[in-house]
């Protein structure tokens, strides 16, 4: 009996894994989504596994230019995968792809910069993505990726 119950639960678990994986297109239904979300939040079964799909796309990067003590210009980059904080920050940036979210994230970055550099003056924040060269261009001239700005703003600590 115990074995049958366990077997039943594990079969149910695998069904939830399939349903949550996004393999099957099921019309949007709040109850259905709610069940999958509840189940995955407690068991880890029911997440999507569609990495880099349908295309790889360009990852978003935030660059900051901060004037320190009215004389030194400091440049920082976020979302470039330097360490775990940067990788996780990159994950947030990549989740939202709209102007409002970019503005919100710019404020978060600005507050980080002002904490990092207590003598900071204004900071210019530029959000964008790196466009790779074509394979041919790279092979012939080692051409670097080109930064394409999507959103920018200047912030000051008051």
């Amino acid at each position: 009996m115990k074995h049958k119950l366990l077997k039943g639960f594990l079969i149910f678990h695998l069904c939830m894994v399939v349903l949550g994986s996004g393999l099957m297109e099921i019309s949007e239904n709040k109850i259905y989504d709610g069940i999958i979300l509840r189940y995955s939040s407690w068991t880890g079964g029911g997440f999507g596994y569609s990495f880099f799909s349908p295309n790889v796309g360009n990852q978003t990067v935030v660059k900051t230019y901060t004037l320190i003590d009215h004389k030194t210009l400091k440049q920082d980059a976020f979302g470039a995968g330097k360490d775990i904080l940067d990788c996780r920050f990159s994950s947030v940036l990549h989740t939202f792809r709209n102007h409002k979210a970019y503005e919100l994230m710019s404020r978060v970055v600005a507050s980080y910069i002002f904490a990092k550099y207590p003598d900071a003056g204004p900071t210019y924040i530029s959000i964008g993505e790196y466009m790779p060269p074509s394979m041919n261009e790279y092979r012939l001239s080692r051409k670097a990726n080109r930064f394409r700005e999507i959103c920018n703003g200047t912030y000051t600590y008051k």
Partner: protein
Amino acid sequence: MKPVTFNHAIQLAVLRIGVALTVLAKIWVEFDQLDMLFSQHGIIQEVLTKPLDISYVISLPKVIDFFGIQNEHLFLTSLYTVFGLAACFLLLGFQTKISAFICLLIHLMVFNGYNLLAFGFDGFLFSLLFYTLIFPVEKVFSFDRLIKGSTEVIAPDRLNLYLRVLQIHLCIVYFTAGFSKFGGQEWMNGTAIWKAINQPQFYTELTPFVKSLASYPWISAVLTWGTLTIELFFPFLIWIRWGKMQASLLIGVIIMHVFIAAVMGLQMFAWIMIVFDLSAFGGVLFRKPNLRFLAIFDRKSNTYEEKISGLNGCRN
């Protein structure tokens, strides 16, 4: 060609030890950044966590609110210390169930509270921690077993069931990953790998070398379509016993993950996937097991092997 299953209790030890090492690695890289990552003054603040809060799950911000914790730094440091101790116990197989439960609970709280910061690795760790909790991983190569002096083994039909769940889950993961890519322009025209290695967050010391190779369209296409082929066909071909195909396939996916770790810098993701691969299908690498070696893990290995062989209609 006969269908085959690859069952051995050692795979459950691989699951437990692999997951514990993953948790320890996660703690190691995150410990210095806890305030920035998981406090209300970090990169994800209340303005974002509140609207995304899910009422029915336990999460880190909720626990902090509920207990009115003022010193978040101290709380997070203590929490991660407990997390680390539980992972060490899990690694050794000491108080295994309690350790697995603590690891799962802390990971679940962090994951649900800050899932904006989560990436694929966290999801897989969550799933595998759940399996570590519900499967009898303490019965293989563990201190719990030594202390109890137990010679009890996992019933072969149960072991069969546990490993089958891991195997099917892994197949769903690969097939979904391959299927969702299939039809994507970059995956179809063979430029996806070129595009991926050009992303700044995946830059490693090997990137210039790999870029110089992948700038030849045919090399990029081979790598892109190779990845797609492995992901799409692994879930089907791994079940077919034909020469050394199963072992080659398993080694193929492991090489793919090692490539991802070395070239794209996604070491944690690669590691958890290798743990998943080996705990689900590691048995294919040991078709002719060394019984003396297995006896270290399982004192009744001879009879046990016979029972499993009888169940599966074949020998591992």
